């Protein structure tokens, strides 16, 4: 179906937003290390958040919405990666100059305008992902341009912001977050709303922004360190922000599905108009628990056993519309259900679905009669704890009222298949107000000149440099595109290990290990570098590197050296080797006497079993030959 959409004709517009974590020493507004903890949380605290007025005196709608949900938040505290700033118990420190410089580099790379002064703003976020109730963010560059392959994409905003807390669990009323992640610097690069492009072009744009960001060499790698959001609208539709598109390829699908969703919502709006649906026809939800009192349905029995209520309401003229598919596998009914779920109930049940599954056909007939259901209508029931169920009904009713007029501006979360689910209304600009605890950061001409000197080397130059190291064009390109680019640069800069060997470990061995099911994402840059340092210092052999990396991923809380001792992968000296060989030769004296020189071949396996990965096989052969010779 998506193939048949003419994106030009429907007036598709979209914007791409990339958030990438920066590899700075400290967090953006405190002295904690900018990294994810490998330890268990040391403590937790509980908090509530409230909606507040912005500097223009307006309570942001999105913020108010979250408040109504009245949730509590539990925050996990990590002893090394969380301080009082992270739990909003101490004012933020000044903005990390390293992060500002990195983002400034990117802004200059995109030829953006740099404001004279950077002002940190508070972006109201009361879904709990920031302990303060806002995310700190600042514009570093405006009106930049992303250029690639003769294309120029306008980049209106380049900002630095703090990463939010990572969600651990969500049971509706209480959400648990981890605070190690909170405050790690992010660069945010967003395109404006682009017109006349196909969904697949977004993939290319996101890819090139990603490459550009990586070229600074100052970004973190691994799962979750880069996040893609897209803004989508069509003619007659509205701006919808899709958060957290996991992979590049999914961007295309997410845009296609959203375009399709908005088209179908427009059809529903037109159909409702045709049927004469209007606001006056909406009715308040009614308590219909009594009708279900004798129900034999397991589903209902469970609800009633938990002392819940069931509310019902009639959606006049909505009949059969809840069945309509907005995008593959998602009906309008399912979308309404998500609004109910956001209020803490399990979902909705309605007459546009197959009620036989729930064994409540008979009861629903009575509910329909009670609510005055007519042929063109749809009847909905919601079960849950009294107040919550009522709130859920009202949320669904509000969404249905909006369906008469427009496609709501909202934030949606991307699923793994490219579909999306409702998250919250789209926040307005009134959710931004100044962070008065942090003084403005002056961008001087000197700073700009100084930063220009460090502007990262372009793709071509890097390619030239790598091939000069003897890596070959394909391997060089492969490294540049890979997530291990920083590791590669880091290792060849800080050790004397041959670039070819480093490249083969990072490109081939890591892929092999991943296929074997090794959790390679647990090997951070520091540990990777340390492994090569130990190799250079001859503490481990080349043949042991894979085993060491396996060990490092398995014991992330230990140092590489500790892991090596634990696994017994430490290299041994020739003397130690000789002692081992002497012992083996002694124990196998009969074989040696019988086989003479041939015994070397026979015993090699026994020796290697003990020393594999700890010393070069050639040396083993030499010493073994020598010791065998000695036996008379």
């Amino acid at each position, binding site marked *: 179906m998506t193939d048949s959409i003419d994106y030009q004709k429907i007036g598709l517009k979209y914007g791409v937003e990339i958030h990438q974590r920066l590899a700075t020493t400290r967090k953006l507004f405190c002295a904690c290390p900018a990294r994810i903890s490998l330890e268990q949380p040391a403590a937790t605290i509980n908090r509530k958040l409230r909606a507040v007025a912005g500097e223009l005196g307006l309570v942001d709608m999105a913020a108010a919405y979250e408040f109504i949900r009245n949730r509590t938040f539990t925050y996990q505290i990590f002893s090394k990666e969380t301080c009082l700033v992270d*739990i909003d118990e101490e*004012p933020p420190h000044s903005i990390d100059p390293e992060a500002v410089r990195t983002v400034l580099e990117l802004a200059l790379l995109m030829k953006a305008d740099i404001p004279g002064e950077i002002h940190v703003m508070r972006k109201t976020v009361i879904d709990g992902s920031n302990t303060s109730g806002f995310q700190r963010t600042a514009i570093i560059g405006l009106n930049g341009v992303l250029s690639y392959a003769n294309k120029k994409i306008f980049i209106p905003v380049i900002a630095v912001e703090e990463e939010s807390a990572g969600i651990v669990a969500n049971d509706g009323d209480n959400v648990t977050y981890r605070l190690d992640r909170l405050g790690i610097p992010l660069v945010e690069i967003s395109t404006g709303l682009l017109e006349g492009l196909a969904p697949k072009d977004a993939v290319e744009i996101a890819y090139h922004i990603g490459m550009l960001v990586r070229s600074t060499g100052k970004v973190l790698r691994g799962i979750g360190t880069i996040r893609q959001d897209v803004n989508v609208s069509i003619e007659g539709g509205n701006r919808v922000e899709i958060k957290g598109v996991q992979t590049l390829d999914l961007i295309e699908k997410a845009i296609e599905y959203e375009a399709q969703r908005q088209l179908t919502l427009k059809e529903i709006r037109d159909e409702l108009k045709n049927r004469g649906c209007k606001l006056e026809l909406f009715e308040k939800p009614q308590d219909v628990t009594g009708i279900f009192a004798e129900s034999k349905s397991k589903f209902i029995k469970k609800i009633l056993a938990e002392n819940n209520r069931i509310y019902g309401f009639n959606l006049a003229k909505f009949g059969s519309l809840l069945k309509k598919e907005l995008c593959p596998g998602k009906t309008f009914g399912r979308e309404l259900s998500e609004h109910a779920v956001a209020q803490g109930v399990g979902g909705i049940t309605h007459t546009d679905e197959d009620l036989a599954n729930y064994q409540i056909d008979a009861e629903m007939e009575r509910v329909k009669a009670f609510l005055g259901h007519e042929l063109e209508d749809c009847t909905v029931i919601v079960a849950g704890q009294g107040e919550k169920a009522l709130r859920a009904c009202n949320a669904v009713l509000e969404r249905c009222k909006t369906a008469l007029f427009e496609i709501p501006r909202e934030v949606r979360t991307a699923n793994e298949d490219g579909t999306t689910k409702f998250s919250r209304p789209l926040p307005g600009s009134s959710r*931004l107000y100044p962070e008065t605890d942090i003084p403005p950061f002056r961008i001087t001409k000197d700073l700009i000149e100084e930063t220009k000197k460090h502007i990262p080397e372009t793709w071509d130059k890097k390619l030239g440099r790598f091939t000069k190291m003897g890596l070959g064009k394909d391997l060089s390109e492969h490294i540049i595109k890979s997530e291990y680019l920083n590791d590669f640069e880091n290792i060849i800069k800080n050790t004397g290990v041959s670039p070819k060997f480093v490249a083969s470990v990072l490109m081939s061995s890591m892929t092999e290990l991943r296929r074997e099911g090794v959790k390679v994402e647990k090997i951070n840059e520091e540990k990777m570098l340390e492994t090569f340092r130990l190799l250079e210092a001859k503490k481990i052999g080349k043949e042991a590197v894979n085993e060491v990396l396996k060990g490092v991923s398995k014991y992330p809380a230990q140092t590489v050296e500790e892991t090596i001792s634990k696994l017994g992968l430490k290299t041994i000296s020739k003397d130690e080797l000789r002692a081992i060989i002497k012992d083996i030769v002694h124990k196998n004296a009969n074989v040696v006497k019988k086989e003479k020189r041939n015994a070397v071949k026979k015993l090699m396996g026994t020796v290697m079993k003990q020393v594999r990965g700890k010393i070069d096989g050639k040396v083993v052969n030499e010493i073994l030959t020598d010791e065998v010779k000695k036996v008379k």
Partner: protein
Amino acid sequence: MYSKPLDKMMKKKKVEAGDDVRVTKEKNSYTGTVMPKSESSDANILLIKLENGYNIGLDYNSKTRIEKLGTKSRLEKFPTHAFSFDPKKPTIMILHTGGTIASRVDYKTGGVSPAFTPEEFIAMFPELTKIANIKSRMIMNIASEDMDQTRYGHVAREAERDIKLGLDGIIIGHGTDTLHYSAAMLSYMLQNLPVPVVLVGAQRSSDRGSSDAALNLAAAVNFITKTDYAGVAVCMHENPSDDSCLVLPAAKLRKMHTSRRDAFRAVNASAIARVESSGKVEMIAENYLKKDKKRNAAVNVNIEPKVAIVKMYPLAEPAILDFYLKSGYRGIIIEGTGFGHVPTSPEDPKKSWLPAIKSAVKAGMTVVITSQTVHGATNKHVYRNLRLLEATGVIFGEDMTTEAAYTKLCFVLGNNKEPEKIREAMLSNIAGEISNRRELRQFP
């Protein structure tokens, strides 16, 4: 202040904070609302709020063009809440004195400063009105470090006025920095209270989503409506979680942290009550003055401002006292080391504080000893140096905090002239500022 050229241009174009403008710099132009000049900003920077909500500082030079697009008085408008009255509910008055609890972003200083009308304030905490009828009045608007003797008297008189109207309790919104001074002072000024007077502060301003003000206020309202306690108390967070607050004894607490929500701790005492976020109140104190609306409060706002606190440290010179004597000070709190020591130096009498203290006392100055350890009681017997100090005529302040002893001395000197009366009053327990036993759980 803006730089001269920028200021001139702003005046010429009649551009003020709140106006919409277009600023053109070389090839680019920016449209947005002019924000008030922030003091921490460079003089040559024009701060504008872009349409996307971000503020940016634009460098002004001779090539910068500013165009006024429209006048909008969009700044500083906050939702308000009309008062309603339910005769079945208790009525509580919130008296605002300023501080973080009544603060929001201030563009003049770039920091948070006190600025809220009572109606705006109640609109921010509508849940309070579910528990009680909430009235609210701003009686002053200062940062708590600016409290003075007239203001202490003013707060006490305003509270007295509302108590006489038969209200069920008073909440005083107060800055946290000197909240423990005010709490102690008010507990001396407002004795024999028929209802509770609870001081509440906030460590995070009320314009933040994470402000502690809401829970502190709700806990105070629950404490006032659900217990029979009468007298002055303080209500603040128990720990960094929004789970519970503690109601603390007014003359036995101290701000122990610059920024944490649970900065206030009882010193040589236990909390009066714990109030959970659900509204449940657990009374901890056993002996306290019970609510009795028929009782008349004894209000006395006379205080002596000429009282000082002097902290002891290894190199402290006794000549410091001369200044206070010459400047007409009537009382000094000496915050001694350990049990209350001052440098005594038998080898070098010039370094000893004993002679200076002795002559100060002789000249009519009241000298009270407290300890800078914060926790624990002073003692005048354990060491010889303490006995020598005692012999100079000082008053050992038992286990009073420095702040409680200081405010008490202001109060006692404001009402007494004779040394014996002063000594007797300082050593008698007026408002729970002295306790004669200290329990294991009270520290740390």
